[in-house]
């Protein structure tokens, strides 16, 4: 099952749990499941996060496919100047 | 405000235009003569992006009133190349990557030309001080100074 790695800010929704195993075929599906289990978390992950998957950061990862062994790191959106 | 008729020489051409007494020479060059090479970076003579030559001396066009140009001989960056030949400074700036965004480049070229016209073999320090009135935010000045050094070498070679 894919693993969602949460930043410290996110862990207030999960009672401090940093790594959650969540089923889903895409990052969007994983977020949806996280919202279902921890109301409010999905909102934060949708609007204020990019997702690091396989060493690459994706800014809008809703449709990004993930597999049973994928680690998803929810990180802050990045821009630059 | 009524406009004054100004006649002068710009880049070798005799020109004339109208400008009110409170119009800067920079604005007159750009708006009346279409010579947009000189840029306004600050309007207060602190950045050198509007550098032009007036009778061979470098000046900030933003600090001169347009009617002050009457009877004088002006050079802008548009007058540095002759026909299809770039001035050596223009060539070395290109080869030396002495520009990134390019907004300060006209001012630097004119100021560097004034330097080399007066001092054909400047030291690095002399170059840096002569160009201290021209701000560049992109390059850190390194490649600009090197390009001026290279142009000095080329001009000296051509003079022989």
């Amino acid at each position, binding site marked *: 099952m894919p693993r969602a790695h949460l930043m410290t800010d996110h862990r207030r929704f999960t009672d401090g749990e940093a790594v959650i195993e969540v089923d889903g075929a895409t990052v969007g599906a994983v977020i949806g499941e996280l919202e279902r289990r921890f109301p409010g978390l999905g909102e934060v992950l949708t609007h204020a996060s990019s997702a690091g998957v396989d060493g690459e950061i994706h800014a809008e990862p809703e449709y990004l496919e993930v597999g049973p062994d994928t680690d998803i790191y929810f990180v802050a959106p*990045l821009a630059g100047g | 405000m009524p406009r004054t008729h100004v006649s002068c020489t710009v880049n070798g051409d005799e020109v004339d235009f109208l400008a009110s007494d409170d119009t800067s020479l920079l604005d007159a060059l750009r708006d009346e003569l279409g010579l*947009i090479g000189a840029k306004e970076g*600050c309007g207060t003579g602190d950045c050198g992006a509007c550098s032009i030559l007036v009778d061979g001396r470098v000046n900030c066009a933003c600090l001169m009133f347009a009617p002050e140009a009457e009877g004088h001989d002006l050079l802008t960056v548009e007058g540095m190349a002759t026909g299809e030949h770039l001035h050596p400074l223009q060539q070395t700036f290109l080869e030396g*990557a002495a520009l990134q965004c390019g907004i300060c480049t006209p001012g630097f070229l004119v100021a560097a030309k004034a330097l080399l016209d007066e001092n054909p073999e400047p030291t690095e320090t002399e170059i840096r001080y002569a160009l201290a009135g021209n701000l560049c*935010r992109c*390059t850190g*000045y390194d490649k600009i100074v090197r390009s001026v050094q290279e142009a000095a070498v080329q001009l000296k070679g051509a003079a022989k």
Partner: protein
Amino acid sequence: MTATENPPTKYKYIGTRPIRHDGYDKVTGKARFAADKDLPGQLRGSFLRSPHAHARIVSIDTSAALIMAGVKAIVTGADFPTLDVKNPSHDIAVNLMARDVVYYNGHAVACVAATTKPEADAAAAAIVVEYELLPAILTIDESLAEGAPLVNDNNMTKFVESDGPSNLATVTELGRGDVDEAFAAADLVIEREFDTADVHQGYIEPHACIVDVGLDGRADIWASSQGHFKVRALTAATLGWDTARIKVTPAEIGGGFGGKTTIYLEPVAARLSEISGRPVKIVMSRDEVLRATGPAPSSKSRVKIGATNDGELTVMEASLAYGVGPFGDMAGLVGAMSIASYKMPNLKLHSVGALTNTPKTAAYRAPSAPHAAFAVESVIDDVAQALDMDPIDLRLKNAAVEGDLTAMGMPHPKIGFIECLEAMADSDHYKSPVPEGAARGLGTGFWFNIGEQSSATVNLNEDGTATVITGSPDIGGSRASMALMAAETLGIDVYKITPVVADTESVGFTDVTEGSRATFATGMAVVHACRELIEELKTRAAKMMEVEVDTVSWVDGAAVSDGKDPVSLAAITAKAKRTGGPLTATGSLTAAGAGPSFAVHCCDLAVDEETGQVTILRYTAVQDAGTAIHPSYVEGQMQGGSVQGIGWALNEEYIFDTDGALENASFLDYRVPVASDLPMIETIIVEVPNPSHPYGVRGVGETGIVPPMATIANAIQRATGTRMTSLPMSPPKILAALNEA
């Protein structure tokens, strides 16, 4: 250069230094920047700006102004739609024209369009505004103080549950391990506090645009911007227009560095143009640029590092606060995330963004990272000295490598920090003795770099030349890089290629030139388009050679097949009509896999202890570029970033008076480095190719500004024995610190 497991591949065009295609126009004064564009009948715009740091607008009376000579239109906040507070463009829309409240001294209150600039200025001055003053917050400390008045009633802190509005933009906590236990076990603990002031990107070209709204309601915009698709999007959002009503042509841009990734003018010019029926040109003055665009945030930080006696950095605790202006901003979050250079098994970061009644901050190269690096790299230097370790050796021992975790908890991809440290250790500068009377400082930094969306169209012309069309404004030579990557892929000479930066109607969607993404992501789109063309060229060649297409390969700009003469690209394009029609392809993608770029800087300097003046004697910047497509422009980014950092370190700061007015709103008093302040900036490009890019590119534009402040602070500390913890390290502050010591 540095040895890696995968030595850089030899390229034919990539890595050469051709004269940039747009260079001739730029050295002859022919290139047109936004202020160089004029339209017949145009009006000039002039803003009226708030003289107060925080006030309610009670009334605005434009009646006297409207009847003045030359005035054709005046707009205020009432002339723009009210966006919902949750709309992502809400803050930008309010920032470019105040509605009920002015949030900083310089905040736009009205704008006049008149036939000449002096007329517009005179009319703006005749607008009468009644204000009701509100308490103003000018510093981070004031903002965070218990019971502080609110800077902005609409601001809800992101990422935490809150009862109501506050002065906190963001609160972020990142960490791993057990810091308390690790500090208790450490042999050495050093803790320091730092502060920095607002600084400005200082681009020489003020913001400018000209907007022509036709009677069909369509707007033609020429703008100075790092991203014209963003100009289009933000203008549409601010005005409530369909995107298709707006066309934006990017003018040549005279510097951005992150400060031109947002908008201040275009919707205002558009409304004025709509009302007056004339084109409207607005050019900011330098004073306006400094007072009313986006500086980089101020900061206050506290960093505590624990180490073992043999130099292992085992733990770091840091709290960071960024002063972000009157609107919510991610600076605090990004600052915490930017701490990622060392293994640091135990980490606790607490970072906030604090609102202030000063200009809304914007990106400045690697946003938020310089502030954090100044603090962290300074303390690490103290650790090195306390342990009597060479600063490079200390960092080599702790440097992050692929797989090590960033502060966010994500493993680094392939990175080149160790290679950069080794290249610095091996450099002529570092191996030379420190000059008499001088001292040497070292500092490091990095930036993530981003990917985002890019599109590119490549058209092959009838004679085998090519046009490469992209949507990334060229802020530092990227056109040349696009041409080089296309040349390498297609196998034709770089001067057979014309790189073009096209308007929003002539190329596919492309995100802003920011985050060091252009060479990486737009380059990737160019390469994809070229590769698609090559497949088509092989198909055409197969027809011409009368062979099966799977026997054809593309080598050195020609189709080759066993037993047949090669068919050059030009030969194929000459027969395009006969073999299937025009040869054109588009690449469009959301680029993933942007590779982080690390940098290591070294500085020799001397401090005049009687005047406090610092003289930089020698400066070297090492940076990992992945692959340097055009080395001159990579060096240029490294040098430019270094010098901006030197200015940030030694002289630059916003000085506000007690009313929140900027006292040094000119280049005379906001002192950026000039040529006579500096030596040559030596550069060493390290190449640890980024596996995610066809040519190994890592963005390079931003990292260069991250190391300089600590590099210089560390040198000053070693020169004088005094550690400067407040930026800028200007002469009066150095003197004061030396006297105190």
